């Protein structure tokens, strides 16, 4: 009797455990999901693989397949992703930056995350409190949030402290203007070997791509399209003035090298051939690798507005995803402080190399590394920032705009003519009809 009672007990417990297990299995998401990322550096894949491995320690039932899409520029990545979707692949999650947000959302490809967020509001509250509104706003279209911010960049001025010291110049003040900048750049430009040509430059690296050109435009408190993305605005006198300044740095003030002159701005900055350049935090990676620490960063010079450009990246879920629960679990994990901490040590941590973490608390950890004024990264969000101009047809906008900026920078077209021609071409691209 005792024996059979024991048997019954074991059976009951077993059944109970089985039921609990089954219910538990139903609750915990499982299965396969596919994650698409931009495979643009040698460390990128291993970085994501590391995150997936740590994710699997907590969620062993979810298999994350990684698809790396190669490409040297942003458009390559987006196009590669489009091609694999056209080829029948149905990825669940995508890593994407500001430039591609409106494109993907306007095609109805992305899942609005609002309902999922509402279900997990409590758990996510800490993430939303820690992430600047400017990050989240950049991923909102028509009041719906489509991506969870992961990392970002703003444009700042990097300066070589040795060169400033050698020239007897004060380091840039936080509220410096474009005139101060130009003054410093002029003092830092020199013909060191006396062959009649400058070989040391005050500044390098504007023109060539949208992200590098726009800060000058934003500092003039304008933009190359209207605020509603419905019309181009490149013939605005303030835009023309900004482009003219980029041109004049090369041809009038002669403080910047002509296009096609330098092979690698960052290396030449380290070598003391370029005193200042504009970039996001990604540039710290190269200097870390070269063990170069005699540099610092300053906010973008105001004219008179102290305003700079930023761009955000994050993760979103495709509407076509067959496994939204697992995808959402992965997205939440990727938004954790633990994952973003990988961005701080930048070089060995994987993708995207050396960006600024989206969480303020994690961004504070940047104090461990140069530059000293690291707070100009996250701190810029407290001031005046503008999102990189990214209407749905971003690729076309950039291609047209940069094609004409190139002609200006080759000194073959006046800024007025170039921008007038660009405006004509942009009419069909930046439009709400």
């Amino acid at each position, binding site marked *: 009797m005792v024996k059979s009672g024991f048997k019954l007990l074991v059976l009951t417990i077993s059944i109970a455990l089985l039921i609990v297990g089954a219910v538990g299995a139903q609750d915990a998401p499982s299965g396969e999901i596919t994650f698409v990322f931009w495979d643009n550096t040698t460390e990128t894949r291993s970085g994501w693989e590391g995150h997936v491995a740590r994710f699997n320690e907590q969620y062993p039932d979810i298999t994350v397949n990684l698809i790396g899409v190669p490409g040297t520029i942003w458009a390559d990545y987006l*196009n590669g992703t489009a091609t694999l979707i056209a080829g029948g692949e149905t990825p669940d999650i995508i890593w994407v930056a500001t430039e591609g947000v409106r494109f993907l959302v306007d095609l109805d*490809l992305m899942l609005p995350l609002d309902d999922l967020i509402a279900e997990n509001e409590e758990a996510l509250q800490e993430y939303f409190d820690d992430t600047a509104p400017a990050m989240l706003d950049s991923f909102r279209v028509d009041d719906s949030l489509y991506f969870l911010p992961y990392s970002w960049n703003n444009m700042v001025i990097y300066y070589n402290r040795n060169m400033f010291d050698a020239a007897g110049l004060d380091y840039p003040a936080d509220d410096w203007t474009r005139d101060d900048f130009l003054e410093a750049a002029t003092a830092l430009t020199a013909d060191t070997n006396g062959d009649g040509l400058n070989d040391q430059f005050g500044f390098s690296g504007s023109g060539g791509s949208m992200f590098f050109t726009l800060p000058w435009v934003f500092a003039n408190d304008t933009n190359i399209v209207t605020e509603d993305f419905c019309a181009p605005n490149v013939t605005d006198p303030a835009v023309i003035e900004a482009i003219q300044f980029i041109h004049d740095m090369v041809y009038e003030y002669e403080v910047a090298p002509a296009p096609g002159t330098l*092979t690698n701005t960052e290396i030449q900055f380290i070598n003391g051939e370029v005193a200042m350049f504009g970039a996001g935090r990604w540039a710290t990676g190269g200097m870390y690798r070269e063990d170069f620490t005699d540099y610092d960063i300053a906010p973008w010079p105001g004219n008179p507005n102290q305003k700079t450009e930023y761009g955000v990246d994050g993760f979103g879920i495709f509407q076509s995803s067959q496994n939204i629960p697992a995808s959402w679990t992965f997205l939440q994990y990727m938004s954790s402080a633990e994952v973003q901490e990988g961005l701080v040590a930048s070089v060995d941590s994987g993708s995207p190399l050396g960006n600024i973490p989206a969480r303020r608390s994690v961004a504070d950890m940047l104090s461990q590394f140069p530059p000293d004024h690291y707070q100009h990264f996250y701190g810029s969000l407290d001031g005046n920032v503008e999102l990189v101009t990214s209407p749905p047809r971003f690729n076309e906008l950039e291609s047209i705009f940069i094609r*004409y900026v190139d002609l200006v920078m080759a000194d073959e077209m006046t800024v007025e003519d170039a921008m007038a021609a660009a405006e004509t071409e942009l009419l069909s691209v930046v439009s709400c009809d």
Partner: protein
Amino acid sequence: MSEKIMTYQGMKRREMFTAYAFILPTFIGFLIFIVGPMLASFVVSLFDWNLLTPPKFIGLDNYQQLFADRRIGTVYGTTFKLAFTIITCNMSLGLGLAVLLDRKMSSVLRNFFKVSYFFPYVVSGVAIAIIWTFLYNRDLGPLNYYLGFLGVERIPWLNSSTYSPWAVVIADVWKNVGFYVLVFLGGMQAISRELYEAAEVDGATAWQQFRRITLPLLSPTMLFLTVTSVIGALQIFEQPQILTNGGPGDATRTIVLYIYEHGFRFFDMGYASTIAITLFVIILILTAIQFRLSRRWVFYQ
């Protein structure tokens, strides 16, 4: 008697079967990789398709867009200018070098030259273009360095509408001229030596021999090279893509770069296919014209 004929025909049939079996793999490849995509791109040209959402049938709208496209004329202009310059340089330089190599010299020396000229042809065009971007660098490039000794000011090879097309031409000719040399040389060595000996007996000068014997008998070779090089040069892509990315402006934007831009930058497969079809038609017409004209200037021995 009739039995014998039957066997002969049977053999012939078997031979024909073998022949077809041999060309079948190429033919299948041609169908899958050439004819298929060609037909597909014609169909796609009738659609608005961004790869990500289902294609939308829009009839001839893409063809209408061709006429409103302000850039396509410029781009075709650039393409023709580049193609013409490249073909002229390759043909004349290739012929000149082949004539020099066809002289009496040790076979070791001749093979050395042949290999030297032909070598760049087998190297990937992308790798060559990357190397040339270093050579062309305005301030650090060896090209400007050596030109500096001649008193030439630094030339912005890749950033000027005047020089960048030449940068593309130089890189292309350096890569491809070896092929022309080799084909011309092959053509020359096929010409019977007796003709030259007879001409010499008649007192013909070297120039007369070249003008009256070599050139006419090379005409089939020239036809082959012209037809293939026109087709190739109109489709030039990797050199301008890597050297200049088509710029500055549209100074080195060839039609294939333009197709690529619309298809793979702007997600407009329909319009990209439409432009591709205009290129197909243009190449078809040019090739037909060349074959028609060839009747007047090509001599077969």
